């Protein structure tokens, strides 16, 4: 049952072949069996999940009209506030915090009858690409437990990949949904900036952050996308427009006559051979389906990584000032006579991990007087050039494509002491965030040299998210025919699994 797609599960629920309680219990059992090895979850809310499931079953029995994914269990990245459920953003500074409110994403999930099973592991405050920066230890890639699942939404991606949940939610500031989706062999979408409310999403870099869906298929991902997106008055950057028709697009999946642009700067040198091979093959598949492949030039992308690692740390140094030990979260050093400033400094030392401190210090430097124009100011101008490059490229193509990440999953510990090597893994995903557009990663097969999943990235203009699903569904269907079975059937069985 747990190996079915969310769409199949929803169908079985609608036909009365199973109940949400049964489905939820099956997933909780799977979590109990395998999460000791995968460590995707920071908190499993079994009781709360079963209560939600029971409620949906009762509503269904009464004949209420329910959302298409009502009763389906889901794993939630720990960066989203859920009322009275521990929410830490992977940081010790928030250990034990119980939010007194729901994020808008959680409110929407609850309204849609989606069953939230628990909170998933992540790099602290979403700063990282391997989930190793979590204050609570790393998550392990279900494909090979000695490797990282990517990050920062590594827990959510690993949970879906390991059949602990059919659906999950992540957040993507520089690739944190798409890159872990690629490294674990699943589908992940970063919606257009402003398409999903950021209310209750613990902020890392406000002009780049966006929550989005994970699933094992393009259609499952679309079903969740449709439920979580939409305008919200509680988020001033929320787009007041209808949600793009992503489910319809995922069901049609036709690329005949579409123009698909390959970004010259995001391939070739620096990309693992097996990654490039699977990418090139996927292009041929799309061409065989009637798409026209063109090459586009985005010269400023060469500077995207540098711009990102100035803009994001600058915004984070400001956003994380709220962790001041005064109103919630950790407080240490509050001895008689200690000043507020001393307590704040001691608490932030004890509560923040190495990468968070590194980025706060880098951001403080980039924003300090004398350096502001040279660093943060220049980065903001590069951002303009990247937006212009995309605008030009989208006059030549309906969607743009690239490998999602330059390599497959790497070993735990391999890059943790080399921040620059880690940052390079985000080179292909970051431009989407800087421009505020949308992107998807879906499995393109396994790299020949290591038998690990490779991600294929699709990018579309702002609020044209349906194009991602249209192209993604077409490629997914053609690859499935070619492979004969879904990619996850090739993943090794986890110990303890029934």
């Amino acid at each position, binding site marked *: 049952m747990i190996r079915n797609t969310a769409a199949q599960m929803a169908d079985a629920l609608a036909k009365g072949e199973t109940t949400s309680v049964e489905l939820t219990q099956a997933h909780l059992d799977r979590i109990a069996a395998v999460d000791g090895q995968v460590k995707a979850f920071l908190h499993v809310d079994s009781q709360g999940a079963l209560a939600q499931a029971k409620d949906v079953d009762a509503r269904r029995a009464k004949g209420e009209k329910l959302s298409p994914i009502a009763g389906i269990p889901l794993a939630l990245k720990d960066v989203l506030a859920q009322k009275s459920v521990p929410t830490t953003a992977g940081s010790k500074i928030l250990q034990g915090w119980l939010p007194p409110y729901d994020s808008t994403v959680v409110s929407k999930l609850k309204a849609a009858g989606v069953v939230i099973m628990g909170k998933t592991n992540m790099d602290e405050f979403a700063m990282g690409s391997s989930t190793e920066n979590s204050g609570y230890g790393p998550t392990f890639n279900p494909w090979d437990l000695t490797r990282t699942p990517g990050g920062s939404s590594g827990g959510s991606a690993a949970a879906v990949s390991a059949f602990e949940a059919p659906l999950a939610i992540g957040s993507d500031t520089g690739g944190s949904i798409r890159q872990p989706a690629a490294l674990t062999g699943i589908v992940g979408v970063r919606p257009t900036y402003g398409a999903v409310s950021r209310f209750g999403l613990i902020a890392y870099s406000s002009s780049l952050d966006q929550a989005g869906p994970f699933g094992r298929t393009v259609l499952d991902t679309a079903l969740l996308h449709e439920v979580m997106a939409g305008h919200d008055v*509680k988020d*001033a*950057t929320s787009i007041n427009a209808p949600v793009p028709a992503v489910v319809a697009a995922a069901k049609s999946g036709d690329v005949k006559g579409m123009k698909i642009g390959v970004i010259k700067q995001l391939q070739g040198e620096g990309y693992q051979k097996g990654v490039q091979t699977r990418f090139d093959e996927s292009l041929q598949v799309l061409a065989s389906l009637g798409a026209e492949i063109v090459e586009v030039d985005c010269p400023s992308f060469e500077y995207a990584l540098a711009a990102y690692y100035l803009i994001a740390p600058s915004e984070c140094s400001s956003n994380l*000032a709220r962790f001041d030990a005064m109103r*919630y979260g950790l407080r240490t050093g509050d001895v008689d006579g200690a000043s507020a400033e001393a307590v704040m400094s001691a608490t932030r*030392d004890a509560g923040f991990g190495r990468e968070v401190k590194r980025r706060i210090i880098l951001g403080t430097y980039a924003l300090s007087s004398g350096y502001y124009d040279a*660093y943060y100011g220049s980065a903001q101008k590069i951002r303009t050039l990247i937006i212009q490059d995309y605008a030009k490229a989208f006059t030549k193509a309906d969607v743009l494509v690239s490998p999602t990440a330059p390599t497959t999953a790497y070993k735990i510990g391999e890059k943790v002491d080399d921040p620059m090597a880690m940052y390079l893994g985000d080179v292909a995903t970051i431009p989407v965030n800087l421009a505020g557009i949308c992107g998807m990663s879906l499995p393109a097969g396994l790299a020949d040299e290591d038998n690990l999943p490779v991600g294929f990235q699709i990018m579309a203009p702002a609020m044209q998210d349906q194009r991602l699903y249209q192209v993604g569904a077409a490629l997914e269907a053609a690859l499935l025919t070619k492979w004969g079975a879904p990619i996850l059937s090739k993943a090794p069985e986890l110990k303890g699994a029934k």
Partner: protein
Amino acid sequence: MSSLSRDDVAKLAGLARIEMTEAELVELSSQFGLILDAVARVQEMDLSGVKATSHPQPLENIARPDVVLPSLSPEDALSGAPAQEESRFRVPQILGEAE
């Protein structure tokens, strides 16, 4: 190559209100050269006449209707407080006699 001395890092850590151990200051200072070299690449392009983008959305002055909506009760607002007194956040001394 760019660099940032141990004392530079200590000054920034002070501005950011993060107490750091000597080992942390030294480690960060040793890593910063490489990171600064990498991010300084933003200065390689000719950016004269290019406008800065602070935000991907062309939105300005977004306001919601001025209607009273439910908000947190004092109990809920204080539920995560490290310390409280008389329905208020109790915080360490901010002003007053110098020590």
